[in-house]
């Protein structure tokens, strides 16, 4: 964070990210919400880049913009009678309260912790390092996560399977 360029980039990206995130909650139109969410995701990816975590940044774009945002779009468009507007609900106040609480906790933790600064240089190839760790040290959590995802996929397929659907040649 010594480089002025990086600092400027960080603040610009952070402002865009936070602003877009606020917009997600504020705008009434659900599709606009998703569009702003995409901006937020992209901003987070930008933050990763300022941290030299290029692999994570790219994966952030790939998964969050390429998949999660699309999933949300599908959910909005395919829901019958949901309308296109973000209805004002009774949850507004509790949600606001919760958000303030979480934000407060995070800020407190961020300022309270004495962050240890690593002496070693950044990784040249973050992808290789992550790959090594995932298949070596964290192999078990990795596998558990994949099994969980697989079961989620199977469950989803089972849920939406039309009744009496049969396997047959196309």
């Amino acid at each position, binding site marked *: 964070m010594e*480089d*002025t*360029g990086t600092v*400027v980039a960080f603040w610009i990206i952070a402002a865009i990210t936070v602003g877009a995130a606020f917009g997600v909650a504020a705008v009434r*139109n659900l*599709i*606009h919400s*998703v*569009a702003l969410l*995409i901006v937020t995701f992209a901003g987070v990816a930008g933050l990763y880049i300022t941290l030299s975590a*290029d*692999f994570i940044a*790219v*994966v952030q*774009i*790939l998964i969050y*913009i*390429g*998949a999660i*945002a*699309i999933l949300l*779009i*599908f959910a909005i*468009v395919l829901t019958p009678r949901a309308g296109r507007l973000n209805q004002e609900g009774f949850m507004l106040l509790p949600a606001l309260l919760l958000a303030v609480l979480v934000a407060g906790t995070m800020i407190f933790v961020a300022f309270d912790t004495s962050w240890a600064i690593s002496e070693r240089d950044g990784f*040249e*190839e*973050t*992808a290789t390092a992550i790959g090594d760790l995932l298949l070596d040290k964290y192999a078990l959590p990795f596998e558990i996560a994949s099994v969980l995802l697989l079961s989620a996929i199977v469950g989803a397929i089972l849920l939406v399977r039309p009744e009496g659907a049969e396997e047959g*040649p*196309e």
Partner: protein
Amino acid sequence: MAILLSGEWYDLRDLANPIRELIDGIGAPDAVDYVLWSLIASLVILVWLVVSVIAFIWIERRLVALMQNRKGPNRVGPAGLLQPIADAIKLLLKEAITTRDADRILFWLAPIIVFIPTIVVFAVVPFGESMVLADLNVGVLFLIAVAGIMTPAVFIAGWSSNNKYALLAAMRTIAMLISYELLQVLALLAAVLFIGSMNLGAFVDWQDEYNTWLVFILPLPLIAYIIAGAVEINRSPMDISEAESELAAGYHTEYGGIKFGFFYQAEYMAGFAIAAVVTTVFLGGWTLFGLEEWIPGWLIFLGKLYAVFFLYIWSRGTLPRLRIDQLMTFAWKFMLPLMLLNVLIIGAEVVAWEETGASRNVALPAIGAVNAVLAVILIVGWARVLGHGSGRQRGYRATLTREIGKIYYTGAEAS
């Protein structure tokens, strides 16, 4: 910082030196330098892209016309060469209509967003030796991620138009792009597995060093990538998101003037991006078995790129369109298992090569041959398993008869 790469007059890279000196001369901080330098390089790429698109609009129209027994544009300028420019001027001068019920902001934004990923891709593509804007370590992943931005952009275009054709096309496009992105990832994953790097420059270096092209070693991923690319750029037989005969103009039905021009350009640029990736990853990039010593690398690269793009023009002039469910079936039931298997096989081959320590002259031809045979077996075999070749895909002629009043209906294949 100015390095003279080669003294040859044709080497474009030398043009960079005076510019760099100029920027250094300003004496601005490094960050400003960096931004300026990137902007100039991006501008060069953008200019090349726009010129290419304009040229290829003419080339495609003439080529398709040739395939269709007509002349194509031949009135504006010599042999109609100025036609795309006339078209561009027409598009610029047209009123940019925003329909009344459209979502104004998103409607304006969508053509711009569609533009971004198609240009950004070229940042990581090496046009020649050390002619790459951003030598990213995760270049391959970057390609896929950036292409993924297309999906929401297309949806935003379709949805904000408030047009039913556009929305239907947008939904189709999203479903298609997601399915075929998977194939893209798996195809590139196979290549990455084999090379052991995600840097696009490393691909070219590897192919240069081993004096081969990846297409000879990994034919199946190349096929998958080209097919998935056709989906991304809406070329037949995968052009269901435009589907001229069904959905008018698909997601950009409501767009006119220069906003339509943006989509039109973006489509070509995306085509060039796909062709650039195919060229870099599978066709040896800017190398040509030693010929790059005499011919500038960027010329070789562009030649290959245009040749790959020609494939898409050709298919557009030739093939009808598949239905969306057929394309989805093709992606999920046919290509996906094949590609997963392919990744497994290639992983095994890499391990086997490392374990046996065979020399490259033995290992590469062997792996190439095995993969080619496997590709054929897998494609034909899996097609058989899925019930192709049972006769339902084959055409037949009408039954001829001289008797009237008889009924020849069998209904054997009505489903």
